[in-house]
């Protein structure tokens, strides 16, 4: 009862702000822009189909969605320190964290669906509905990545306790996930023998939600051979089971940070 009430309470706050319409418009503009930009280089402006648009959007998604999730999560987590009145209500403190995560995941998923959905209508009308399921797959991957970023950001925010510190740590974590992990992968490839590198790179893929989402996304288009060193290692080690492992790892990237954030918030002084 309290869990549902807390989610409703946080959802009401999340949807009332400007963030949802702002990001919905941003996602829509990005998707339509990518669909138009790909074929305009030859001098003729036309609309790409869902498959090409999705592949082009994937990289944009991998950069912006984790940043969005981490930053918003960090701010929301740091704000939990200020909820003294709510923390004194007869509800487990961890539920305050869960309620925030659920409400913001819902709000940003709505923005994602509205934005990419509006762009999808334009693409479908002008370029046909072929490969629309892959486009939906991309939205699914973006949603998982968003939920994981929010969970991780909340944990950072709850642990950091101040908004400025939380945002700083979130940016550093984003840099490590988006760029640092790939640098580590390249270094591993250079120094390890082939067999050891396969295991290490697969572990790195599972240990990094951004790389996991990238490999999963490229797998949607049978393009995981170009998923970089970690994607190639995963393909060699697990074959077709890789997608399941990657999806499970993304779910774990939601559940584990969320539980850690809840536990930390329950134990700390406000």
């Amino acid at each position: 009862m309290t869990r549902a009430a807390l989610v409703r309470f946080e959802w009401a706050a999340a949807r009332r702000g400007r963030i949802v319409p702002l990001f919905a418009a941003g996602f829509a503009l990005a998707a339509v822009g990518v669909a138009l930009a790909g074929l305009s280089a030859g001098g003729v402006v036309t609309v790409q189909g869902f498959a090409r648009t999705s592949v082009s959007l994937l990289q944009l998604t991998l950069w912006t969605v984790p940043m969005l999730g981490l930053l918003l999560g960090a701010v929301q987590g740091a704000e939990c320190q200020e909820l003294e009145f709510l923390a004194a209500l007869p509800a487990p403190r961890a539920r305050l964290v869960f309620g925030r995560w659920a409400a913001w995941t819902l709000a940003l998923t709505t923005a994602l669906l509205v934005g990419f959905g509006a762009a999808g209508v334009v693409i479908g009308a002008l370029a046909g509905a072929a490969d629309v399921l892959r486009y939906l797959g991309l939205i699914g991957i973006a949603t998982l990545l968003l939920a994981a970023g929010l969970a991780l950001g909340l944990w950072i925010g709850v642990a950091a306790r101040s908004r400025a510190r939380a945002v700083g740590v979130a940016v550093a974590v984003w840099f490590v996930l988006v760029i640092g992990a790939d640098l580590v992968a390249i270094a591993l490839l250079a120094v390890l023998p082939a067999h050891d590198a396969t295991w290490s790179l697969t572990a790195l893929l599972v240990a990094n939600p951004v790389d996991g989402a990238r490999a999963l996304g490229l797998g949607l288009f049978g393009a995981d051979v170009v998923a970089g060193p970690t994607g190639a290692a995963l393909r060699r080690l697990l074959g077709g089971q890789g997608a399941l492992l990657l999806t499970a790892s993304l779910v774990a990237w939601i559940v584990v940070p969320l539980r850690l954030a809840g536990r930390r918030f329950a134990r700390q002084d406000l």
Partner: protein
Amino acid sequence: MTAHSVGIELVGVAKNFGGRAALAPLTLTVAPGEVVALVGPNGAGKSTTLRILAGVIHASAGAARVAGWDVAAEPLRARLHLGYLPQRLGVPLATVVGDLARLVAAARGLPADAGAQALADAGLGDRLDATLAQMSGGQRQRVLLALATLGPVQALILDEPSISLDTAGAEDVREAIRAARRRGAAVLFASHHLNDVAQLADRIAVMVDGRVVACGTVPELAHAAGVAWIERATEPLIERVYRALVRGAPLRVVREGAA
């Protein structure tokens, strides 16, 4: 002890922040229907005491109980019987009053409209769609006070409840404390408004540097502080008692129940 024999109980409660002792072992009880005020200078440990009882911070040692329930071991049961008004707002400013009322009602297992009804009773029925940011400081305080006392609250804890309130708002707070006392709730509040304290409190605990240096009724404290009771005083007795106690006048701590 049954769950209801003592409203609020602190036994040897201490709190350290890092290496600094913010609260020396403190023992204090508030009976059902009794109002006790915590007074003292800033940093004396008043808010720390109240926040431990509310479960917002954790005691380093000792036991704090609300309606007989240990706030550390049985936090949900303790908080079910507790109304807490923090010194800081404690809720995001963007919160819509009606949403907050529904949440508090749900958390206390009450019908969804119980919070709205409590706000209507407090004269705030027309502000359900407003955000806290759209209200004055006094109105926010009245909203939180109405919701803090929602349901079968057996212990009410208020941290500087009259702060930022105008005369009417301060009277609302006083009336809420009186109403809680009439309902049989134990009330513990911290305040710098000594006249409020003298009017409302059955007993006053004076805190300095994390310790209760004296506790009793106003005449008991006056006796302990060596301040004479003068009928036509130039300043209220409580003001003189406070100054004497806080500035380190020779003290005899009045024990509970002592004349």
